[in-house]
């Protein structure tokens, strides 16, 4: 067992860290968050050029075929820089669902090059967690293909997406199936809005949208498992970004305490604030350990162990992240509650992490259930 990054992982981390240092200042982050798509196409081009979009995609279809460990190394650095680009959604989550499918052979190269941006259109009204949300959207056979009908909710980057991965029920099938749909198809209407971190999401109406036979990625038998596995991977990648945000907040806050004064003393001299920083580090280290735990289970290959570890990591890292970034705000004082300092943006990034792909209650219960079965 060893935790030392490979040379490749080191290079990946260094180049990401350099990019964040040189190009991801808060001002440009605030601007891109206010832009129509909610992220920066300039960053997106860079990600593509660096091969970051291809990282986890299979080789042969434009991917580098690297694993989640590499993705975690990359995302931790990007998380420090408040990355807003749909890297994980498009490549890890949707790319994972496309891998090994016929449609993937044509679409994945575009994902790797950044020309295509993929978004998952799965949640519907009344759904809370992607793992177990009800699906009412329907897929009815039409010639060799299908027609999709229904309304999808809270599709992250749904407005910018070039393609949507849509869950829909086939008549009298138990589960749902997954389809890849060109977002420009006739019958698709999108209602976009802004999330707390600037991400654009959309509610998307599908009105008898025609899709070809090859666009059916997974049938009722396998779709839920495939999605569960892709979600687990996306959570691990996002958890690494969350950890990066926590590390950034530790540094920002320690620096702030050293530079500001109150009652004629530097804030750094107040024991209560020092101890808060110590508590924040304890939680950050716990979060990092849970990330390793999830990465180990991913590599281990036992599906149930992976699900247990990922749910555990999701729950604990969300708890730790909200504490660390929330206390980062507290230790900054008033300015921490403004958009003008980074700490509040990190806090909102952690709120996103905590609520997406199943909240803490959901994952604690999933973990407990799996542990009892275990």
């Amino acid at each position, binding site marked *: 067992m060893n935790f030392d990054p490979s040379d490749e992982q080191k290079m990946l981390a260094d180049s990401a860290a350099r990019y964040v240092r040189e190009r991801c200042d808060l001002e440009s982050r605030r601007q891109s968050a206010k832009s129509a798509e909610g992220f920066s196409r300039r960053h997106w081009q860079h990600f593509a050029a660096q091969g970051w979009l291809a990282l986890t995609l299979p080789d042969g279809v434009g991917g580098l075929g690297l694993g989640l460990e590499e993705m975690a190394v990359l995302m931790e650095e990007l998380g420090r820089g408040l990355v807003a680009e749909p890297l994980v959604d498009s490549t890890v989550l949707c790319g994972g669902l496309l891998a090994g499918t016929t449609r993937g052979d044509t679409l994945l190269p575009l994902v790797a090059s950044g020309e295509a941006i993929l978004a998952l259109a799965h949640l519907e009204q009344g759904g809370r967690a992607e793992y177990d949300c009800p699906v009412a959207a329907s897929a009815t056979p039409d010639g060799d293909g299908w027609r999709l009908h229904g309304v999808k*909710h*809270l599709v992250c980057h749904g407005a910018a997406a070039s393609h949507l991965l849509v869950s829909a029920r086939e008549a009298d099938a138990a589960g749902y199936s997954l389809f890849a749909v060109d977002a420009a198809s006739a019958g698709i209407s999108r209602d976009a*809005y802004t999330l707390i971190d600037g991400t654009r*999401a959309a509610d998307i109406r599908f009105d008898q949208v025609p899709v070809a036979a090859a666009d059916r990625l997974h049938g009722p038998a396998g779709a839920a498992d495939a999605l569960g596995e892709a979600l687990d991977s996306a959570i691990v990648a996002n958890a690494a970004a969350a950890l990066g945000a926590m590390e950034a907040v530790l540094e920002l806050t320690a620096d702030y305490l050293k530079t500001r004064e109150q009652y004629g003393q530097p804030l750094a001299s107040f024991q209560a604030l020092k101890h808060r920083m110590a508590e924040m580090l304890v939680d950050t280290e716990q979060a990092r350990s849970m990330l390793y735990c999830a990465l180990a289970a991913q590599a281990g290959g036992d599906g149930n162990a992976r699900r247990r570890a990922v749910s555990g990591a999701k729950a604990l890292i969300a708890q730790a992240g909200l504490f660390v970034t929330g206390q980062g705000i507290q230790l900054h004082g*008033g300015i921490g*509650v*403004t958009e003008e300092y980074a700490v509040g943006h990190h806090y*909102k990034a952690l709120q996103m992490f905590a609520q997406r792909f199943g909240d803490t209650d959901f994952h604690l219960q999933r973990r407990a259930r799996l542990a009892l079965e275990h």
Partner: protein
Amino acid sequence: MNLQLNPEDLAFRDEVRAFLAANLDPAVIYRSRTEVHPPSEADRRWWNSVLNKRGWAAPGWPQRYGGPGWTPIQRHIFDMECRLAGAPELRWQGLRLIGPVICEFGSEAQKARYLPAILEGSEQWAQGFSEPGAGSDLASLKTTALLEDEHYIVNGQKLWTTEGGDSEMGFFLVRTDLTSKHGGISMLIIDMASPGVTVRPIEMINGDVSTYEVFLDNVRVPRENLIGEPGSAWTQTKFLLNNERTSSADIDKAYGDLRRIRAIASGESKNGRPLLEDGDFLRRLTQLELEVEALDWSVLRVLCGAPSRRPPAAAASVLKIRGSQLQHRLGELAVDALGPRSLRLFTRDQAFAAEPAPLWPGYVPGVRADQLYMRACTIYGGAMEVQKNIIAKIAFGL
């Protein structure tokens, strides 16, 4: 010891409820209950004048200046009923902060000039206390006001001036005597339209602007705008804070939040059952309901001057600490009750314009903006850490 509300208070509550039911329409109630920051300026001005006609605008004022002459308990009941009924929040800077100060320390001319407009809500006030680098620490104020042919020439910079951009008037802490280190601080009334006053809006974490930076550049202020004697601002500030012993508990907002959380939990479902019946959720809600109920009793104890082993100022800090901790936890529970929908940010105007729809029920807008904004409540009005210092010192002599 008698721990029941007396009949007069119960009758008073019914009277207030009837008045509220008769004067609030659903649109106003909806906007109030979004709890966005800042709330609708128009609603507040309107509600201010409605209450003023009824003689209820300034419960805290002496009767001779327009106060209704209520007991502390009745004021508590009034605030609570207003919040639960969905009445607009009033502008506390004028009615709760500077108004009583002018009643107590102001000149007759100042009383005549300012009090009626505060009661009517036709003039809104901004507080100019904090400065960059002096958050909870007033001793290090730098803004100066130097006398020059019957005018104070004011120079300096204020931070966290809530609603400074929507205010006609402001009351500022300024140094009128540079020779004394701790003294020499006076409270000065400044017309926000004066030349040399500029405000910079500060975008808050909730995406709205509720507070401002105020720059004072050679602002000429008539000498008669000084409140009381020069250098007497400490007395006035202490008086002002003593008026507000219990308000920092934010108890009526806490009850309002509980009402909203129950509304969400009745509308949302989890594992096919109403969220309100989910074990984990119910445990968290019950815990918070209990702590809010306890906080309410803590407020009542202060209002009734209940006997205590500790000085009253300690009780105020205790209320502030637990009250703001509860604000954080209530916001988190509301957000968790909404689930991923809570990630959509409705700014104030988006919340007011939102039409209830199956995907976006009427209880969604405002929840997240309120949760985010209220992260500030453990910082403003004396940060949590400062409150703990105070308690250790005056309650335990540490």
